[in-house]
């Protein structure tokens, strides 16, 4: 059976697993983005909490994904819970780091100007610092998404949802019928999803940084 026939034969299942995979990654990254930005915002003003947050996330990052998933089985069991937890943990580091770097990278002159015209801390953060740091933060989220794609596939090890199931069952039956087709389908599916998500981020970046974009268009007009 060729790969194409294999895919045609199981189209419904593969489509379901793909949607599951995409949905899991999207939700995990969303959770990680919210948590990561919040942690970054809480930490960026002071050097020690900043260092602490990045270090902890960095240490968690170095644990191999299979090992982390295995460690999560005793407390969380199998299925969605350990998968989501592991993906979020890995996705946090790039987001926290980029949030801190992005916010710290805002020109102190602008912060001074904003304070000087009477902006409150909160307004300064939402109107000046976060918008200016946004391209950097978005890059962090984008990197996290790519990470989540891969770890999402490994999550099948703890019976997590998604395309990982195709890869793991294929690898388990290596030499058997359709084993390679199954593994290939999972791998290619993850790769295609990753490309689609990345394209979505490029568009998101364009639409959420209107200042630069419109300025560029203004230049073309003038």
């Amino acid at each position, binding site marked *: 059976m060729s790969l194409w026939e294999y895919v045609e034969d199981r189209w419904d299942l593969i489509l379901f697993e793909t949607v599951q995979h995409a949905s899991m990654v999207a939700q995990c990254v969303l959770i990680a983005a919210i948590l990561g930005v919040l942690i970054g915002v809480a930490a960026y003003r002071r050097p020690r909490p900043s260092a602490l947050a990045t270090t902890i996330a960095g240490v968690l990052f170095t644990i191999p994904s299979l090992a982390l998933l295995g460690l999560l089985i005793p407390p969380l069991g199998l299925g969605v819970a350990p998968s989501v937890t592991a993906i979020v943990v890995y996705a946090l580091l790039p987001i926290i780091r980029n949030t801190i770097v992005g916010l710290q990278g805002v020109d102190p002159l602008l912060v001074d100007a904003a304070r*000087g015209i*009477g902006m409150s801390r909160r307004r300064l953060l939402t109107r000046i610092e976060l918008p200016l740091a946004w391209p950097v933060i978005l890059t962090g989220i984008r990197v996290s998404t790519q990470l989540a794609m891969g770890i999402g596939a490994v999550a099948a090890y703890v019976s997590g949802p998604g395309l990982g199931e195709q890869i793991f069952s294929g690898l388990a039956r290596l030499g058997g019928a359709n084993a390679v087709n199954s593994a290939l389908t999972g791998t290619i599916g993850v790769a295609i999803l990753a490309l689609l998500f990345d394209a979505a981020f490029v568009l998101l970046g364009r639409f959420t940084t209107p200042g630069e974009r419109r300025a560029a268009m203004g230049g073309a007009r003038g």
Partner: protein
Amino acid sequence: MADQPTSGVPIELRKVTKAFPGGGEPAVRELDLDIPAGEIVVLLGPSGCGKTTTMRMINRLIEPTSGDILIGGQNSRGIDPDRLRRHIGYVIQQAGLFPHMTVAANIAQVPKMLGWDKQRIAERVDELLELVGLEPGTYRDTYPRRLSGGQQQRVGVARALAADPPVLLMDEPFGALDPISRERLQDELLRLQDDLAKTIVFVTHDVDEALKIGDHIAVMQRPGHIVQYARPAEILTNPANDYVEQFLGAGSSMRLLRLTKVGDIELDQVLYASEDADAQELRADIERDGRGYALITDGMRRPLRWIGRDHLEGREGPVGATGDAITGTISHRMTLQDALEELLNADTDNVPVVGRRQAYAGSLSLATVQNAIAAIKARERERRLRRVEAQ
């Protein structure tokens, strides 16, 4: 908006001290300063003398360690810092415009925080752009990075003026600009100030800028105290000590030329008469005066013609239209330096000086200016002698 702009309020600093944690000697020490309403007061000094710290304590970007600051009689400690700052314009070096906002959005920030409605903000933005010399239609929707440094700082000034605050703080606002733009923005600030009469605290280390801009100058010395607080001419002619003199540097005579107005010096009071004056009587007056010439003016005392003894020779009745038409006048508001330029380019040795309503106020020649310089120098010599004697 048709209503009058808010004019300045006085600012008083009372024994203001700022000691930074672990910073050794205080950055500002028991500083007293009275800033009159509607004046430009320049804090002048080298870097590290505490001038910026002093200014930033006024809008509480830096909290004083002790002492009080009264703005319009109100103690600034009693006002929420964010609210306080919305009513104090703030202009910094390189303008500090928000790059992700249009020019209009930058200017609109304070009015937005004060809860103005959209219509009012839009009108105010256009009004301010015109005030600072930027055409609203062209610049309203552009982004700051499309503007030159000078234009950015114009927007910076517009942003500071947006909510019509009585007080403006300017921290080396023109320091990053090229000399031509700097000069032009200084001129425009003075022009604006003529209409607005805000209380402006202006920080700079540029002596020429201070002398040009300031109504009063506070010369500061490390650590954080004021050595001399006086009008520019006073500081130039009578520096409080060697530090001030050294800081002013060489060329103070040239600076005086730039600072002194024609109206401030003793002019040559050349005889003048109206066209109706009797020719022979005027001739006799000229004879007695000894200069050998006089100025003919119209009924409003505006200079018309130079007239010499020879013109009147044998003439009966009124003077009438004889004489050589004047080629130009010098305003009493002109600086001596500009007047010198005029004199060197003039066709005649004497150029009439006109005061209010173009009325004749005296005559200026190179000799007159020279005398004025000599007088200034004599005063300086005398002052030095006095200081030496006092030591």
